[in-house]
């Protein structure tokens, strides 16, 4: 099964509540998957700063003195610890140097995602525990996606949890299972992509990242995914300023969307949407099979 949610705000006055709204939506979907949960929140980027969300199986040891250890790469680096995760903020032009030093200094630490605005938190366990562990309810943002997993394709681990991020400010959640992910992974490895897991969804994320690296926008990348990905999927995808949804042509994985003047929301089920403001007057619809939906804050502005 799996439960997925997404929320893209149009009304800036709702931004302080994004984390709380998305957390409620995800917790409602708990009975669609008990194995692991994750949320990606896109905050307002600050000029010239980059964020790297990292995770450790042994945070006590790996995060001790982390900020000082990274200072040689960027004197402005700041580390915020959140349970098993940490958000490293650095100058955008020194972010790569910080990552290189991180690999050298703390090889056990895993990068969950990076970019100008995204923060990604995911762990084994139920949505209510994951959102409270990382304080997601207190987070502000412009858009975000979330996932609660019933594992089918790979191990129940932190790295096997969604969202998967394979490019700067890009991430994806998936309900379904892909059947051609092994072949596609081999092709993407040949093109230079790297993989952390044997998970099918990571391949979909990497595929979209590779297509966008070739110059496509999110909508165009999702359109090519319909030709190149085989299997069952409802995807919800986030980029720095964009939010997309696509379902495979068979469309047996459920999906409901709602739009008002204030937001665009996605849920695996209508239950996930019932607490959103103004839902009783929202336009509620089921996304069509093999049809790409995407919205972009920058293009809308």
């Amino acid at each position, binding site marked *: 099964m799996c439960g997925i949610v997404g929320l893209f705000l149009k009304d800036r006055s709702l931004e302080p509540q994004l984390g709380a709204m998305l957390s409620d939506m995800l917790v409602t979907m708990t009975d669609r998957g008990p194995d692991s949960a994750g949320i990606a929140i896109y905050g307002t980027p600050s000029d010239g700063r980059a964020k790297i969300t990292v995770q450790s199986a042994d945070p006590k040891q790996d995060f001790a003195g982390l900020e000082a250890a990274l200072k040689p790469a960027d004197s402005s680096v700041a580390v915020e610890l959140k349970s098993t995760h940490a958000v490293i903020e650095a100058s955008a032009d020194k972010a790569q140097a910080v990552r290189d030093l991180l690999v050298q200094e703390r090889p056990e630490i895993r990068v969950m995602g990076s970019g100008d605005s995204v923060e990604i938190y995911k762990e084994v366990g139920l949505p209510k525990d994951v959102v409270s562990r990382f304080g997601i309810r207190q987070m502000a943002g412009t858009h975000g996606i979330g996932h609660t997993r019933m594992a089918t394709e790979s191990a129940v681990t932190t790295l096997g949890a969604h969202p998967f991020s394979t490019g700067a400010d890009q991430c994806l959640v998936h309900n379904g299972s892909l059947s051609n992910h092994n072949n596609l992974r081999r092709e993407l490895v040949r093109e230079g992509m790297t993989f952390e897991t044997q998970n099918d969804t990571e391949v979909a994320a990497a595929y979209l990242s590779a297509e966008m690296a070739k110059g496509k926008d999110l909508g165009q990348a999702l359109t090519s995914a319909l030709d190149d990905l085989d299997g069952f999927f409802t995807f919800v995808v986030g980029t720095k300023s964009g939010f997309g949804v696509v379902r495979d042509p068979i*469309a*047996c994985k459920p999906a409901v969307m709602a739009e008002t003047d204030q937001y665009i929301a996605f849920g695996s089920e*209508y239950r996930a949407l019932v607490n959103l403001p103004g839902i009783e007057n929202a336009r509620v619809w089921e996304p069509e*099979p093999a049809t790409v939906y995407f919205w972009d804050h920058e293009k809308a502005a």
Partner: protein
Amino acid sequence: MDVSVKRESLEAMRVFDLATTPLRELNSALHAIAPGTNDTNFEVVNPRGSHAVAVGIDQPVTVEVRGSVGYYCAGMNDGGTVTVHGSAGPGVAENMMSGTVVIEGDASQYAGATGRGGLLVIKGNAASRCGISMKGIDIVVQGNIGHMSAFMGQSGHLVVLGNAGDALGDSLYEAKLFVRGEVKSLGADCIQKEMKPKHLKLLAELLERAGITGVSPEEFKRYGSARTLYNFNIDNADAY
């Protein structure tokens, strides 16, 4: 009006608020109804997308659901009249035996799947696989239906006032399909058939039962099975 009758009908209406009452209480109350009782009017408020609302009804009760429901609403209905004043999630009225289910909004995938009898009316659109494996149910959709609808339909009728998606009636047996708008594509072994006077009469009755007026049976086209896939024939292997 006779005052005593009025009081009796008021007392008979039982309201279940799913924001405060477990779903199991509603369904248990529906299952506990003895034949011949007067206690047959139910109202469900705050369904908020709940699954399995009013499933397994086996008495001629009336259930008014005020809001949208999730999976399998009114499943296995046998004789009840269920109206959803909102939209329905996947599998509404799945395996209905008899009775009436009305969805005022839209219905998600496989509405009326495997239904053996009764009438399902969807006033909005129905998504994919509407009436899949239908076995005697009558389904009337006022809007459009999605792909693979009436797949392997064995008997019963599917009436669509709007358009049908891809692969309508794939591997159809003897379910009869009537579509007023465009059919995006027909599935394997489904063909357009002549609308004979007996079909016009049948369709007029179905529209009347669904409470639809101002639409003439002549506006529809009829689709049915070409009956070439009933038994396996190696020459037809490509069509399966």
